[in-house]
């Protein structure tokens, strides 16, 4: 049991590092790749807890995480990115350096806040709960300071990952059918946002070509 907890702690720390790293990234493609890494780490956490606790539905959770979060969602995002012209976060509200400082500060706040929350007989991984709160905070930071639709979506998924991690630790996940519903919603959400992103981009493109025409005339 203790061994498994240490492994989960390791994955949790890695998750935090990936989230902090994504704050420093401006490229949208690498942002999505970081999401893939986050999802793989989450699936590993679920699988580790599944092995150590013997809870069968954790395997289902790990499988769903792999299929939906690590594969389907990024696939949709990559397709959108292939269709749009802009591949970088151009004018974020905070410079990369300031955003990183703020993100580290938020992670510290998450550790302080998690220290006050006592979850009796949750999975004994010390780092997981603070990291899940930190993921939620960092996701909010990304959503608040980035302007590109895809970047905001990356922030949103980071928040959801944080909640998912907290769920894995605190209650070994929600009941399976609720979990499936949530995964389904996540998938639809990404699909809908992908449609909207494309439409926004279409309008943006039209605006650009108008400008080109004006310059020519």
């Amino acid at each position, binding site marked *: 049991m203790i061994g498994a907890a240490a492994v989960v702690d390791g994955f949790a720390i890695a998750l935090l590092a990936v989230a902090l790293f994504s704050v420093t990234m401006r490229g949208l493609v690498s942002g999505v790749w970081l999401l893939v890494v986050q999802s793989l780490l989450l699936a590993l956490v679920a699988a580790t807890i599944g092995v150590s606790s013997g809870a069968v539905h954790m395997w289902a959770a790990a499988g769903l995480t792999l299929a939906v979060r690590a594969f389907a969602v990024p696939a949709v995002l990559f397709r959108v990115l292939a269709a749009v012209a802009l591949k970088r976060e151009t004018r974020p509200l905070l410079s990369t350096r300031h955003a990183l400082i703020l993100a580290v500060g938020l992670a510290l706040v998450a550790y302080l806040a998690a220290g006050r929350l006592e979850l*009796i007989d949750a999975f004994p991984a010390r780092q997981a709960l603070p990291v899940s709160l930190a993921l939620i905070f960092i996701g909010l930071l990304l959503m608040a300071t980035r302007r590109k639709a895809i970047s905001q979506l990356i922030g949103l998924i980071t*928040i959801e990952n944080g909640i998912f991690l907290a769920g894995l630790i*605190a209650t070994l996940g929600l*009941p399976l*059918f*609720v979990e499936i519903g949530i995964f389904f919603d996540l998938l639809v*959400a990404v699909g809908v946002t992908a449609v909207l992103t494309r*439409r926004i981009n279409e*309008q943006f493109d039209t605006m650009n070509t108008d400008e080109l025409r004006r310059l020519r005339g």
Partner: protein
Amino acid sequence: MSLAPLLVAVPLVAALLCAAAARRAAGVSALAAMITLVVGGVVAFSSFAGPAEHALAGLMYVDALSGLIVLIVAMVAVAAALYAVAYVRNAVAAREIAATEVRWFYVWIQLSIAAMFAVPLMNNLGLMWVAIETTTLTTALLVAFFRRGHSLEAAWKYLMLGAVGLAFALFGLLLTYYAASHALGEAAAALDWDELRANAAALDPALMRVAFALVLIGFGTKAGLAPMHTWLPDAHGEAPTPVSVLLSGALLNCALYGVLRFHLLAAGTLGAGFSSDLLLGLGAISIIVAVPFVLVQHDLKRLLAYSSVEHMGIVALAVGIGGPLGLFAAAFHMFNHSLAKTTLFVAAGALGQRYGTLRLTRMRGAFEVAPIPALALVIGTLAITGAPPFAPFASEFGIAQAGFAGRPAALAAAVVLIGGSVLVFGGMLFHVLNVVLRRAPRHLHVAAFPFAAAFLGAPLVLLLVMGIWLPPPLRDAFTAVAGVLRVAP
């Protein structure tokens, strides 16, 4: 054998049929809405008359509170689906959307209606969350359906704020599940409403306090409670009008329903004080925030949207005041608001298509331009702003009365309610009279609206009748809802 599952199944089947039969999509959608109106009426009134029922092997749970929301969704959905026929036809004629896309509009409308019916019927709170999230996704696409620049922006804002809000609610749900699985053991039913409500006293108070706060922020965002309401005027204002009707008349109530369920749960664990006071406070803030935006509004549908923020605030405040009278008036007011907002949005949409704009400064002389929608706009405005003898006057009067008889915070809330209502009455009437009077512009669009009088008149007549004499079946209905909402002090 409850008919409740049909309420979700019929719109789902209708959505499939709309996708398959492009030419008949409008008719299929209208027919499905009429079927769900009948079924919804049966389900709702049997829930008011008897004890709570289960359906679909315990997956669904119908009590009087679910019944009220079902009734509201059924009525608003039929108005939206029928009005959509005329509205979409005009939009196609005006080249706002391509004729080939029309069926998808009905598909998404029907999917949204199915999700909205699912919200009050789900026994499992996790699945209720899934249903509410689904409504966000389907309606966000509808908001952006016409692909104008502003509507895309509005849909994006709606989707992102809605999703963040729902993430908070999910975290609250998780804490509730954690608390429940400790109190009740590793039961698969740990998020089932009936189990939770029965065992609420055994849940961990500290956890439930945080859980309720998170859920209030989360579902409160969807319900348009200030200060999380900022997406609402954009989405309700920019959406195609039949969608505005659905959003304002039906969906806000579904989200508020989620808040109310957790309020009952939190009150069962913590006593009535904590969650009632939060509802009271957010309700009062919503009223206060809405007033200035109503006064200086420049867009007709945004005006109505801010009025929705105000009225969701009034309902939350009424539940916060509590007591048999306050809760009765809360249920009554929820019903009244939906009826009045349906008429108002349809009238605004009809006028908007004639003028080709919703800017208040460019809409003048509506009595000449389109007499029936103009008249409905004036009467609807009088009704929603609480002028006697319409029903919202009766419900707001009841809320104020309950407030004055209640604790000091309730008394302060009643004062906010009365002050806010007076200001909104003046502001809305000023804008609306400017629209219907004055001289009409010369350039107008052609937009047909058959059966306008029946559409716009029916809800107003009902509001008038209920204001003077509340029919006994409805009185019993609101009493039953107040019974469900009652919490021990």
